[in-house]
């Protein structure tokens, strides 16, 4: 399926940063609608409100750098340059999707733009990114890997073990914690002894906390972190303090668990990355980008819905890279 991507990662200028925030925001609005109408099965974890983290960090990366993402990965995957149309087709489970419909929202991967995949086990991708970064450095060159994870993930042992390996072996990995104030319903005060940056300090990994609602602030910090890793000085941890505006997962739209107040949500929404970045560009530029983005997303939805559903006979295609065919469940 040769399709020229509509975007190729966020440009690092003010309008470029705005464009990518708008793309992610609009993509998820349309995806939530497709969840509601039953086109996207299984629901999604929207990153609405957190786009600045994905946009600012990916704008600091080169196309040949790689990322690993999380269950809340749409922003990361799009910001790294995946085609929104093929991404939407993936969410809709079509053969034209990034993963041919085998991954869906939580596993979207696009190796052609350095997305090694979104991982739905909290924290599990941190060692994977670390290993990829190590292998890339070993191969020569100065590519880096970036691992996204939530505030909930810093209580996973495997994440802390990976911090140790990254620091011990001076691996060029940038560790990006999206501290959105919640692990599903639980606040960091309920789940985390100490702090995110304190965990990095324990391993001698330099760390800083940045405003994760501001794409430019994230970009500035990420540029330094990436440059440091690229130069061979080892890992760096960025804690991006951000807020998600929407549900943990779209099931919340119907189950409506109460874990934060309306006032908290309103306060979070009062600092919207779309407006923070939008205020930095002329109104006419913003309007033009909005119109262009709407067109790209209309086309993405059209492309996704036009894509064929996979043939059930191929349900286990790609199970083994060697092409081994497993026995059928029924003879």
């Amino acid at each position, binding site marked *: 399926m040769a399709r020229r991507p509509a975007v190729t990662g966020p440009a690092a200028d003010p309008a470029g940063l705005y464009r990518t925030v708008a793309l992610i925001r609009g993509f998820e609005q349309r995806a939530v609608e497709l969840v509601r109408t039953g086109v996207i099965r299984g629901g999604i974890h929207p990153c609405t409100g957190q786009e600045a983290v994905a946009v600012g960090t990916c704008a600091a990366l080169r196309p040949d750098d790689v990322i690993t993402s999380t269950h809340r990965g749409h922003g990361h995957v799009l910001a790294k340059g995946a085609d929104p149309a093929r991404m939407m087709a993936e969410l809709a489970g079509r053969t034209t999707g990034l993963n041919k419909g085998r991954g869906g929202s939580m596993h979207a991967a696009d190796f052609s733009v350095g997305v090694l*995949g979104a991982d739905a086990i909290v924290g599990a991708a941190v060692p994977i990114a670390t290993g990829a970064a190590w292998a890339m450095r070993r191969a020569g060159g100065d590519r880096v890997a970036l691992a996204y994870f939530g505030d909930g993930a810093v209580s996973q042992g495997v994440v802390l073990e*990976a911090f*140790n390996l990254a620091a011990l072996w001076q691996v060029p990995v940038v560790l990006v914690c999206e501290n959105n104030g919640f692990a599903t319903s639980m606040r960091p005060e309920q789940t985390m002894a100490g702090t995110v940056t304190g965990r990095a300090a324990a391993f001698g990994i330099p760390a800083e906390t940045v405003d994760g609602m501001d794409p430019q602030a994230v970009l500035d910090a990420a540029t330094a972190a990436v440059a440091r890793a690229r130069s061979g000085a080892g890992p760096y941890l960025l804690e991006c303090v951000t807020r998600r505006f929407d549900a943990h997962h779209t099931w919340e739209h119907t189950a409506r668990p109460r874990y934060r107040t309306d006032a908290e949500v309103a306060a979070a929404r009062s600092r919207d990355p779309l407006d923070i970045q939008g205020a930095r560009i002329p109104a006419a530029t913003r309007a033009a980008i909005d119109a262009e983005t709407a067109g790209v997303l209309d086309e993405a939805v059209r492309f996704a819905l036009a894509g064929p559903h996979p043939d059930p006979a191929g349900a286990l295609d790609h*199970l*083994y890279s060697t092409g081994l065919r497993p026995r059928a469940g029924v003879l």
Partner: protein
Amino acid sequence: MPWLSYLKALNRAIGDEMERDPAVCVLGEDVGVAVTYATAGLLQRFGGDRVLDTPISEQAFTGFATGAAMAGMRPLIEFQIPALLFLVFEQIANQAHKLSLMTGGQTRVPVTYLLPGSGSRDSWAGQHSDHPYSLFAHVGVKTVVPATASDAYGLLVTAMRDDDPVVVFAPSGALGLREDVDFGALAPVPLGAGRVHRAGTDVTVVAVGHLVHDAVAVAEELAGSVSVEVFDPRSLHPFDWQGLAASLERTGRLVVVDDSNRSCGIGAEIVATAAEEMRLTAPPRRVTRPDGAVLPFARDLDLACQPTRAQLRAAVEKSVGAG
């Protein structure tokens, strides 16, 4: 001809592959000094850049190997204890194994997981005596259990060249074995190709790992009265079902001897498949560890949980009597 020990075969296989392919690297605890011997001499030969002593962080270094594999390396991880596979089951079964399918074929994860010393180590008690190969075959991870030194060499080489994750269980009951082999004749052994160690016409004994040697011994004991064919599947996933079917065409009777727990063990799968699809003239039988067994420490108790030659012999005799 020179004697090749099973452990030396593993060591040679790793060294030969590292020589052949610069993408092969080794990770594990104490692999530098080679406390298990499997990695002996490799640090000196290939350097610390390819033979990495890791911290005691199994989950992280197993995930790390997945990432390194996706970025072009072919890591081999040595685990000191089979139970560590429980600790990293997520990283193998849920990550490395699933990535090819979940990405729609965009990546491959060529990692080899080597367990030199699986199963009872002779009174190492509850946490050091597991033989969890059935778990991996169940989830679909390629799983091999070599019984002889030359198969250990050939299967480990194949595992390292395979583009998918492969777990290689080297039973502690086989590590000390030696075999008279011409080193020049050592060659890769394909996955999914069983081996008939001894031909027979009355009953097929499928034996896994070190139990192959017990099965051959029982076959010899019974030679005058019962003609036993000993079939070693060598890899449990993929499994050589055709080879087993061909053997049962000859014998029509099946006994499986498997040093893993009875319920949901590989023995159950072999018996079920034979019952569904193959020629059987007598009810199939299994000799295994008890259901849900945890190996106790005291020597007699440890042995009481493992399949014995006497049990196998009795099962073979019953099988023939019932035919």
